[in-house]
């Protein structure tokens, strides 16, 4: 556990007045407040640090203790006694102030917890009912997983949550699971859980919206003469008629063979197949002779 220099965090001198502390805190809070930096974990962490610094330095008693024992807190016998006393009384304390009300105790550093206990007494006197903290998490899916509606079990802060992932979910899409965030404070409603999906690339299929794109190898003879081939889709194999004299790079569209449309059951995008013609290699003498004949015709 490292010593945390609260003065340095707020960018102030040790002689700073309460007004200077408040001003420094406000300035930094406006920069790093989670409301102003949505989905920015670094800003959230930074805000928690400056909030913690403000909790200590804006409270004359805590500041005095911090100034007295701060750096040597681990070796202070007096501090140890104080800590024991605080631990005994920890359960009788309540609440904190401001944004940190919506967060768990672990949002304060181990250093703070050890020196001042788990609770945070300073701050506003308003007894506010707050919504619980919104939780965010990321769920990694394969493209084939996102193709079908399926159930997933998530472990969020020790709680198992079973969710249904609708077919057609998009990479980067976020869904809200209402009421599965942090517990509300002072009787406020629980927060929500936001899940952002990250869908891995598939080796054979690329996705754009509801359409899929794939490349199919075609041998020279089939490309020249045409014929039937069987190709893979995400929903099994399909037969495809190749037109004679098909060129490399030619595209065909297979209607409704693409990706399911999100929350529109039974609707699908299209599958675009691009042909890549493969020239035969390791030709036999006979084959070379026949190609020569063709070229001279």
């Amino acid at each position, binding site marked *: 556990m490292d010593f945390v220099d609260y003065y340095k965090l707020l960018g102030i001198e040790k002689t700073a007045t309460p007004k200077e502390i408040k001003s420094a805190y406000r300035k930094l809070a406006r920069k790093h407040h989670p409301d*102003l930096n949505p989905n920015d974990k670094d800003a959230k962490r930074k805000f928690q640090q400056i909030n913690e610094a403000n909790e200590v330095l804006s409270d004359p008693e805590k500041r005095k203790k911090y100034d007295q024992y701060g750096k040597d807190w681990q070796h202070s016998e007096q501090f140890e006694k104080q800590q024991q006393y605080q631990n005994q009384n920890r359960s009788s304390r309540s609440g904190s102030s401001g944004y940190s009300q919506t967060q768990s105790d672990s949002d304060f550093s181990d250093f703070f917890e050890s020196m001042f206990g788990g609770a945070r007494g300073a701050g506003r006197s308003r007894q506010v009912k707050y919504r619980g903290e919104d939780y965010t998490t990321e769920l990694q899916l394969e493209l084939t997983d996102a193709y079908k509606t399926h159930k997933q079990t998530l472990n969020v802060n020790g709680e198992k949550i079973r969710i249904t992932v609708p077919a057609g979910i998009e990479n980067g899409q976020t869904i809200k699971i209402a009421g599965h965030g942090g517990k509300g404070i002072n009787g406020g409603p629980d927060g929500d859980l936001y899940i952002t999906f990250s869908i891995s690339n598939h080796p054979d299929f690329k996705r754009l919206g509801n359409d899929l794109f794939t490349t199919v190898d075609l041998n020279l003879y089939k490309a020249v003469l045409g014929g039937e081939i069987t190709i893979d889709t995400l929903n099994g194999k399909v037969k495809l008629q190749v037109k004679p004299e098909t060129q490399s790079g030619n595209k065909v569209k297979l209607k409704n063979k693409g990706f399911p449309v999100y929350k529109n059951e039974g609707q699908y995008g299209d599958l675009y197949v691009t042909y890549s013609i493969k020239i035969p290699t390791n030709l036999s003498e006979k084959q070379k002779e026949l190609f020569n004949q063709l070229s001279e015709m």
Partner: protein
Amino acid sequence: METEYLIAIDEFCTSHNIEISFVSSLQQSGLIEITTRKNSTFIEADQLKQLEKFIRLYYELDINLEGIETINYLLQRIGSMQDEITSLRNRLRLYENE
């Protein structure tokens, strides 16, 4: 018929220890919508999160109403730009590993 979840503004203000005039100012600025039923004013539950955010900005960060309006507008722009980035990233994946 769709169920409406409404929260009485006077109760909300009492529990949050804030002035009703602040909520009215937010409505006048177009930042929130207030519903009136039988001479009482309510806010829809899905606006609660926004309202609490405005309260934090006003009371904890000392940002005035004009500042909140500006921040809200910019956050909306950031949100739509982030959506656009996600959409462009997904489009870019078409050309990756080719």
